């Protein structure tokens, strides 16, 4: 059977699966919440808009252990979300990763939405588009930047350690299957045990995953028509 140090295939597959599940769910949740926020902020001028965008940008620098601590307090038995009994589950990790990925996604996608020229919005309107049509056109025009935002958010989520350790608990069952252990938290365990080679091997798998996700995103962007320059 495949083994690398203390690693076996079951363990390896399960921590990779938990990493992918938690990060993908967190990015999907961030996108569902964040893209409407980007459009709403990007489309409208309102009092305090610069403050809102500054707060969003500041969110990109949230210390993950602080986010983990806040989520821990919220999900603990005496916390406001204690009744859901989510602490030390993958769902708690999804919550903390969503909080960390959301500002990244909103900030980058907001920038992409705002970079769509007003001329194109005018053209969509003049062609008979409603405000919904114009918004969809802007999303379509900003898709390159939105994909970049999704990739950045995914990178933030999958490389997370501090908060998922705090709210997930780094739990592995006796049959070596992971419940809340991810590739990143597994690396910290191996490093603490002095298994540097094993840690590096896990790091390589993590890098390969990130590379694969980015390659998918790049493939989507490269297939986008109309990106061959603005003129001959």
């Amino acid at each position, binding site marked *: 059977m495949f083994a690398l140090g203390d690693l076996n295939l079951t363990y390896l597959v399960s921590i990779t699966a938990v990493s992918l599940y938690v990060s993908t769910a967190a990015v999907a949740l961030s996108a569902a919440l964040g893209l409407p926020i980007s459009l709403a902020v990007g489309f409208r001028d309102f009092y305090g808009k610069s403050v809102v965008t500054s707060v969003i940008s500041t969110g990109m620098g949230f210390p993950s252990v602080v986010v983990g601590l806040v989520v821990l307090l919220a999900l603990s038995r005496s916390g406001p979300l204690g009744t859901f009994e989510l602490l030390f589950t993958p769902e708690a990790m999804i919550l903390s990763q969503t909080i960390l990925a959301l500002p990244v996604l909103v900030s980058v996608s907001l920038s992409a939405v705002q970079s769509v*020229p007003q*001329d*194109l919005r*005018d*053209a*969509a*309107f*003049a*062609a*008979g*588009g*409603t405000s919904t*049509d114009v918004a969809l*056109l802007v999303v*379509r*025009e900003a898709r390159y930047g939105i994909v970049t935002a999704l990739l950045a958010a995914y990178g933030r989520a999958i490389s997370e350690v501090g908060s998922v350790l705090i709210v997930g608990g780094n739990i592995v069952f006796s049959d070596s299957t992971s419940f809340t252990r991810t590739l990143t938290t597994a690396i910290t365990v191996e490093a603490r045990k002095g298994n540097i080679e094993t840690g590096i091997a896990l790091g390589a798998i993590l890098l390969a995953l990130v590379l694969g996700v980015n390659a998918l995103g790049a493939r989507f962007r490269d297939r*986008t*028509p*109309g*990106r*061959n*320059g*603005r*003129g*001959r």
Partner: protein
Amino acid sequence: MTTERPGADEPDSGEPDETTAPDPASNGARRSKTRLAARGLGHGFGDGTVLEDISLAVEPGEILAVVGPSGTGKTTLFRLLAMFERPDEGTVEVGGDDVWGLPEARRLAVRRRVGMAFQTRSLFSTTVEENVSYGLRVRRSWSARVRDAVEGLFGREEPSETVEDALRTVGMFDKVGRDAGSLSAGEAQRVAIARALAPDPDVLLLDEPTSNLDPRNTAAIESAMRAARDRGIAVALATHDMQQARRVSDRTAVILGGTCIESGPTDEVFESPDDDRVRQFVEGKLVY
């Protein structure tokens, strides 16, 4: 003060609001076209007044040139005519309806009878075909649009006759499958005009469509304007190119300082203007 001649722009001309013209989308069938009129338009931004008391009309089957130096308010006027925003004063009328007095749903229907192309490059980041068909797509029901999108996943359909007709009008059908980003400025402008023509509008507004273009693309666009006129479309052209106004337009309105100071048949405005400022402007002696 505006100087007007017989046949000049006059919203209250008493002319019938509609005429008939061939519909390019229906292979020669005839569909009613309508006129666009501005009555007493005034508009400003902040404390500054850009337009003041402008009245003009463009009738089906004619080209009206709105001439004046850059910065005189032509673009603001055209944006008001295209219903981008509500004028501070006066009315915009399509087929006799004050568009800002209509309920939103009816105003959308009226707005869709007016097409516009801009001075700046405004093609979407997709193919030429998808650019030209955009106005047709947004007029379809959501269920039809979703069905089209799903069908699009399983293969590319041939361009519709309407898209083909619009692209042939501007001489760009051979580029139908190209990425819009790969077109030259002149080609992009021709595609933008095809996009405005595809839904068979009653009124076509062209804001400085040939500024900075080479003679070949300028000629193609002027040819498209004449073709639109021949189909009964009311074409309004904003330009600071006096020679172009003279070449293509049936009537001309001269705007200086945000006010229409003279309007009438193009030959008369150019050959024997009543207003001395117009005379100086058409002779190139009035510099703003």
